[in-house]
């Protein structure tokens, strides 16, 4: 089977420093230019093209990067990822409508809330075996939704309305219909998340997660504080979900429990699995494709969850490593840093 990842990695590794910067800049330019391509074949017949770029595509990418820390890097199946998204969104909704705080001030609070709930859920749940973790997180996702549905402060099924948009910065105005501004801001958040994941993956944390994913018992017996690193993975994943939630609420200006169903968790899971668990570029690719196609092809739009379910089954059975698998290839070059 062709291994796109290896092809890509080979091109990347054969570039010098300038080549790499060039590729990175090129990719960023393409991503940043996407809002201008509405008139081309990329246009989405079902929904407004530029708003599709914001949600689902960019939002899915961000959440998929977060979930990938949990499931792809450390092998922990979290089926309640939507809970952190919801917690971020409701933090924005509540504080944005009841206090004078603006989106940028609420963002760290929302992230902190998501991380905190990640600890509350993770510390007990991560002591359990993998499949029980899946059930517990699944239940947690539902609980958060049911609580939102039944608490008066959270607006019950009507949710929260009139959430403020972010205040302008550097002269940029966030109007609710200025989708491209939101899109570019999300790109920034995505870059930040990529930076965080890449940074962590190459050092101690990355090795610890990798060893936990492959053989947790062996990891523990070779000195890896497995529980600590599992909680970290969980909490970092939650932080990204929380950030996405804050921004989502500040974009749609209206949130309700229906935006935070179990299906969202499964959709993001599908993005991660489809693209390639553990490989951040794969995950991004997966989220872009699965976020985009339902709005491009009408048939898929009607049966979007059905398609996503099929994606999960087919990928797991035929190509469990996803479109762009995690590192498989061995460096052919001799180790340059060899002492």
């Amino acid at each position, binding site marked *: 089977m062709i291994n796109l990842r290896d092809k890509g990695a080979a091109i990347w590794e054969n570039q010098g420093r300038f080549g790499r910067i060039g590729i990175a800049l090129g990719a960023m330019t393409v991503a940043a230019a996407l809002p201008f391509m509405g008139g081309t074949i990329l246009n989405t017949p079902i929904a407004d093209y530029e708003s599709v770029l914001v949600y689902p595509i960019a939002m899915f990418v961000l959440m998929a990067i977060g979930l990938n820390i949990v499931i792809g890097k450390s092998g922990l199946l979290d089926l309640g990822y939507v809970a952190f998204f919801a917690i971020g969104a409701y933090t924005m909704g509540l504080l944005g409508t009841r206090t004078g705080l603006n989106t940028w001030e609420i963002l760290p609070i929302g992230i902190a809330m998501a991380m905190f709930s990640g600890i509350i859920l993770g510390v007990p749940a991560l002591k359990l075996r993998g499949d029980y973790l899946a059930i517990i997180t699944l239940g947690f996702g539902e609980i958060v939704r049911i609580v939102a549905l039944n608490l008066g402060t959270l607006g019950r099924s009507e949710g929260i309305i009139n959430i403020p948009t972010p205040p302008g910065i550097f002269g940029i105005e966030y109007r609710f219909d200025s989708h491209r501004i939101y899109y570019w801001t999300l790109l920034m958040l995505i870059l930040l998340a990529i930076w965080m994941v890449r940074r962590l993956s190459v050092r*101690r944390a990355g090795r610890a997660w990798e060893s936990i994913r492959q053989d947790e018992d062996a990891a523990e*017996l070779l000195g890896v504080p497995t529980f600590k690193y599992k909680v970290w993975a969980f909490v970092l994943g939650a932080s990204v979900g929380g950030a996405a939630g804050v921004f989502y609420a500040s974009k749609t200006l209206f949130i309700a429990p229906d935006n935070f169903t179990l299906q969202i968790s499964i959709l993001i899971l599908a993005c991660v699995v489809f693209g390639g668990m553990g490989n951040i570029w794969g995950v991004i690719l997966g989220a872009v494709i699965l976020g985009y196609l339902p709005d491009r092809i009408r048939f898929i739009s009607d049966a979007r969850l059905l398609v996503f379910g099929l994606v999960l089954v087919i990928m797991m059975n035929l190509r469990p490593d996803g479109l762009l698998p995690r590192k498989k290839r061995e460096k052919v070059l001799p*180790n340059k840093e060899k002492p």
Partner: protein
Amino acid sequence: MSTSILSLKSVTMRFGGVTALNDVTFDVKEKEILGLIGPNGAGKTTVFNVITGVYHITSGSIDLQGKSISGMKRYKITKGGIARTFQNIRLWGDMTALENVMTATDTHKRSGLVGGLFGSPVSRREEKRDKKRAQELLDFIGIGEYADRLARNLPYGVQRRLEIARALGTEPKLILLDEPAAGFNPAEKVELAKVIRKIRDAGYTILLIEHDMSLVMKVSDRVVVLDFGQKIADNTPQKVQDDPRVIEAYLGVPEDAS
């Protein structure tokens, strides 16, 4: 007289109604190679599992340099100075040989997640130092050339040795080798015996489980024999071989049971 690094006192381990270890007492002395032998099911691997904290002992005590380690978290025991290899190889297959060892060297790192995220000087320094250390260990064990190969693609014999290098990565005082020669041919066994001695000469203490009697008798300074979860002999290789109880325990079992 050398001091003991690890001492098991009256260690008993029961699983439900089955007694896997019954009142086992022995010491491992600093810088010795102690062989642990016994017929199949005698409780050898159980000894490893109780020392490394996989099982919690029913009664008795296990002390590492005078401090009790029973009930401690497993990674803390490792950090305290005990590392092991596995009878059925349990490397992290999707990591390179070097990364396998580096994951183990992380045991004593001070910098954690946050330092790694922001590239703190401590983290960068430690990363560099550990990479060097890991490569040294691979060279020391004689598999330095495989550093960048994925562990699961390595030849069987190299995998077995990588297990040892990985255990050494945790900077142990005591290393537990669980049948390191399993599946080796005679030439490889001779090679392994050299490596084991080399490890001891580098200052480590070794507790060795091995089925191959000639290997154990050749490298060990002392041999402890288990039978049905009980210690039946604890002596020099020569004396153990002549011990009638040991001969009885092995009677009917071919010497080379593996």
